[in-house]
């Protein structure tokens, strides 16, 4: 059975390592914070100017001066720190953030990503996505494998305007986990009950299936 958004987040959380500084995009990526593996400690960076982002506040602790990049009220954990937007993107560009998780409309087999603009629709802007994808050492895309029309979002080439080129290293979709390298999607794990054949059918880009593909453990 394909994963729901919580399952995707849970699987991505397995990629976290102790001491990682992590930037989570809006949507599914945000959920990753709920599934940090036991025994490891990570720090979340919010690009509006915070390290050590904590959970949403209790009603009594809401503070209009403390929001995340999704403009949601949040908290700061002990050891957290605030800084300005220039400093925030400075640390992102300098590669100090170990892992960036974000959503995508399309990913190409060469690692290109499109997630900010659909021609003909009102464009709200790229926010920090172009900076993040151009700078992050390690980018995992969290997304549905197909769009609402059932078309593959893992493509030979992006059809939408690009956010960044050759930058996506890994994808966790509702159907599986994929390395993006050598101009192809390498299937690493299947979602529970999902067959290689289904994944193959729903992947328009070049898919590499080497040996026996295990089911993921959640």
């Amino acid at each position, binding site marked *: 059975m394909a994963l729901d958004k919580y399952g995707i987040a849970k699987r991505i959380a397995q990629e976290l390592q102790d001491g990682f500084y992590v930037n989570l995009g809006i949507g599914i990526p945000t959920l990753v914070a709920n599934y940090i593996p036991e025994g490891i400690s990570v720090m979340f960076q919010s690009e509006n100017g915070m390290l050590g982002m904590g959970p949403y506040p209790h009603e009594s602790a809401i503070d*209009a001066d403390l929001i995340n990049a999704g403009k949601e*009220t949040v908290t700061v954990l002990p050891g957290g720190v605030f800084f300005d*937007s220039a400093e925030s*993107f400075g640390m992102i560009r300098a590669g100090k953030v170990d892992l960036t998780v974000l959503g995508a409309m399309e990913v190409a087999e060469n690692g290109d990503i499109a997630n900010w603009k659909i021609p003909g629709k009102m464009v709200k802007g790229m926010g920090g996505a172009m*900076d993040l994808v151009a700078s992050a050492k390690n980018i995992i895309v969290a997304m549905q494998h197909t769009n609402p029309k059932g078309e593959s979002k893992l493509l030979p080439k992006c059809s939408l305007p690009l956010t960044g*080129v050759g930058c996506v290293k890994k994808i966790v979709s509702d159907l599986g986990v994929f390395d993006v390298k050598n101009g192809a999607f390498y299937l690493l794990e299947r979602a529970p009950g999902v067959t290689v054949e289904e994944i193959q059918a729903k992947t328009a880009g070049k898919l590499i299936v080497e040996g026996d593909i295990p089911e993921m453990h959640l």
Partner: protein
Amino acid sequence: MKKVYRNASEAIFDIQDDATLMLGGFGLCGIPENCISALIEKGVKNLTCISNNAGVDDFGIGLMLKTRQVKKMISSYVGENAEFERQLLSGELEVDLIPQGTLATRIAMAGMGIPAFFTPAGYGTEIAEGKEIRAFNDKMYLMELALHADFSLVKAWKGDTLGNLVFRKTTRNFSVPMAKAGNITIVEVEELVEPGQLDPDDIHVPGIYVHRIFKGIDYEKRIERKTVSL
């Protein structure tokens, strides 16, 4: 040093039609509420507003959109408000979308006297069109220019009469680089104190960047997305 003004109207006295303004804040967090009100009251038109976002329908820059004072927005993410979308689609409003880090850094560079720099953001995308591309250490970068404005309008938490500023939590955002970048920087603060009352080790923006300062009133601090843990 006479930097202290009585209120927003007096502090923005010389902002005229067609001015280019930087407005601090991220979303509705840390926006210069008093200055925005005063701009609306003054009725200056054809403004170019550099601000990461464009407010919501009934708060922040959204209020200035309603009164049709804004000709152009320079932002990274907009459209949280219906009026914005309407004006954009009807062609009344121009929008220049810039990656958030590039926007923040172009502003910061203006405050550092650096006219141009290289960033990887947007390489290979439509953002790179017409820009100089160059490789450094086998990675590709775009040349971007410092971004200047006639006035920077910024809200800080505390400030002293010399213009030294302290911000609270995530309100630093674009406000700090904008405060340093303005040809004329106008700052509203929740608390205006005397020199010596702020610890010289804890000041986020030295007063040398700040031209005018006043104590703001009636802060609403609207929350855009209230999210809570149960």
